[in-house]
């Protein structure tokens, strides 16, 4: 899904990206069998300074997509252009150099910090790896970074276990911005945190974006957080994009039945609204990404398919893969895209 923007505005362009993980049959003779199609042909571009939200349920491939676009995983197919340059499959010294411009913030603030290293060492790692000495020395720079993300610079010699979850996430963020990258993929950066701390970290990420002119790809399952932080939102299901649109447009007027079901399922902290609300319930579970449904991957759970379509229309859903079509400012992969019959929020 590409949008037309002047080339200079586009920092990242992804075309038909695929990431398949090989699987093997069980038993004595382990033969290669059908791969897990975690990401199966997604295309999009990210503009400089914007935040693209990638939202979907567990197993939809959103984290794999984030990792693959940073070359933490090698793509199976498709291409990734960064600032107009093809970076698909770069490795070694070239990739290391690229890391000064692209970084990642991880979900788990416990697992992503080495418990045997001090905070000072962790945040200084990017400088060590790149062989860069900032003006004023590494220690001074690390301490100023710590201060910037809201940590006490005197805690330079402490270890991760001495910090709370929210503080650890700040450490991870300090490390990610240390080299002043241009693009950061944030993979569920706040989902492990308590609500009151979540808001602190979201605000910090927004401040840093303005201050350092950052572009974010923000991967999350929480639709409320995604709405708050994103300029544009892509909704993923079984390795594919279902709908991409500007944030306000997507939330006010979702056109894909999956987007509509997702939004209608978000519990709202307001009992009166909650009691009046109708839900678009999805039946069943996520199908296997090893053997995804034919035609539209969503048809097995699609409420529109189940309730609104005729026999001939259904046949189209089960046999023909929906192409991305442009409806207004939306890009939707659905043969029968259209507004929901009820208010989804």
């Amino acid at each position, binding site marked *: 899904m590409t949008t037309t923007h002047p080339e200079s505005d586009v920092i990242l362009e992804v075309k038909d990206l695929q990431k398949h993980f090989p699987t093997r049959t069980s038993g004595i003779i382990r033969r290669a069998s059908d791969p897990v199609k975690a990401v199966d042909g997604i295309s999009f571009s990210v503009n400089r300074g914007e935040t693209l939200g990638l939202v979907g*349920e567990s197993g939809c491939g959103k984290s794999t997509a984030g990792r693959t676009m940073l070359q933490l995983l090698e793509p199976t197919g498709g291409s990734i252009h960064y600032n107009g340059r093809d970076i698909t499959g770069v490795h070694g010294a070239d990739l290391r150099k690229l890391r000064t411009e692209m970084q990642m913030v991880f979900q788990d603030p416990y697992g992503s910090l080495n418990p045997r290293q001090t905070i000072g060492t962790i945040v200084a790692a990017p400088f060590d790896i790149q062989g860069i000495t900032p003006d004023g020395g590494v220690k001074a720079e690390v301490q100023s970074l710590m201060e910037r993300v809201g940590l006490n610079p005197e805690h330079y010699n402490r270890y991760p276990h001495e910090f709370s979850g929210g503080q650890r996430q700040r450490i991870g963020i300090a490390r990610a911005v240390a080299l002043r990258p241009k693009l950061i993929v944030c993979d569920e950066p706040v989902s492990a945190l308590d609500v009151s701390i979540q808001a602190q970290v*979201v605000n910090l990420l927004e401040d840093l974006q303005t201050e350092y002119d950052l572009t974010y790809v923000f991967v999350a399952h929480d639709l409320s957080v995604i709405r708050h932080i994103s300029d544009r939102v892509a909704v993923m299901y079984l390795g594919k994009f279902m709908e991409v649109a500007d944030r306000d447009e997507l939330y006010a007027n979702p056109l894909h039945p999956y987007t509509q079901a997702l939004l209608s399922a978000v519990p709202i*902290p307001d009992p009166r609204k909650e009691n009046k609300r109708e839900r678009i319930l999805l039946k069943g579970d996520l199908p296997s990404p090893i053997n995804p449904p034919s035609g539209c991957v969503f048809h097995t759970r699609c409420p529109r398919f189940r309730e609104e379509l005729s026999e001939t229309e259904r046949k189209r859903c089960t046999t023909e893969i929906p192409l991305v079509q442009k409806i207004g400012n939306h890009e939707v992969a659905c043969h029968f895209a259209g507004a929901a019959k009820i208010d989804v929020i």
Partner: protein
Amino acid sequence: MSTWVPTEGTSDALLSVRDLKVTFPTEDGLVKAVNGLTFDLNAGETLGIVGESGSGKSVTSQAIMGLHRGTRAKVEGSIDFDGKNLLKLEDEELRVMRGRDIAMIFQDPLSALHPYYTVGNQIIEAYKVHHGSASKAAVRAHVIDMLERVGIPNPQKRIDQYPHEFSGGMRQRAMIAMALVNSPRLVIADEPTTALDVTVQAQILDLLIDLQKDINAAIIIITHDLGVVAEMADKIMVMYGGKAVEGGTADQTFYSPEHPYTWGLLQSMPRIDRERLDRLRPIPGNPPSLISPPSGCAFHTRCAYRDDENLGCSTIVPEFDVQDWHPVRCLIPAPKRKAIFDTEIRTPSS
């Protein structure tokens, strides 16, 4: 609802918790995980306990289930269920009640189900413990019926499968089937949907509401997600640092909350049902230490409305008046709290 709990000695609630305290001795000192909790719960009613990590909400549910027995934890106060103090029961008496009268739904179905046994065997076991004389065929039929009621398709086949063959949502349904197989009178659901995707969460919450109607059970739902309790709870208790800070009906909690911490919780979450804010309003600082909690009001270190000079927020411990109909553990006088809420917190759409 009248007062938070009736005057002493007159409670006829199904569950009556009075001044519950749970402490854990550790090398660093005594952890006061739950520090004086009082509430009532009637049959058919749902209580939502809301709080962040370390607020004591899960420890409370474990105390009711008697899961601190045989550990170093010290449990004080009283937990009366159906007129019997659960803390005074012999292990054997408690064992008979647990699973039959009081059941629990855990957050993570994968670690709560045994990977070695089929889902059916685990539910059958839960039933047979309390119905020893039932015939094998009858038990199996009952369990298949239960799996069907919780919405597991093809239960005749599913009953003989192992937990790893179930998806996350199906496992949570199986756990609910296990918890409800004996038609318990009290169900404790500890973050029952936190591990689930939002579309599955909606299914599970609807399922719990339906099943509650069937068996008229009382439910305690423990969660950090105010959206989840908005859908389910009749009354809500907000916990902070091991204590209740605000208690009331769901309407009171959502439409006229009075504790600054409750305000903070409601304000810090981004809301898809409201105008998008340019900036989120977090609660500053971090949750309190349970070993050496802040002096005075435990929340004063993070509270935007503290007034040490006039109210003594940093020195005086505020009370939770259980004879109030909407108790609030805060030193700010009630009229002033209401005024702050009306002028600074309430949004036009609420």
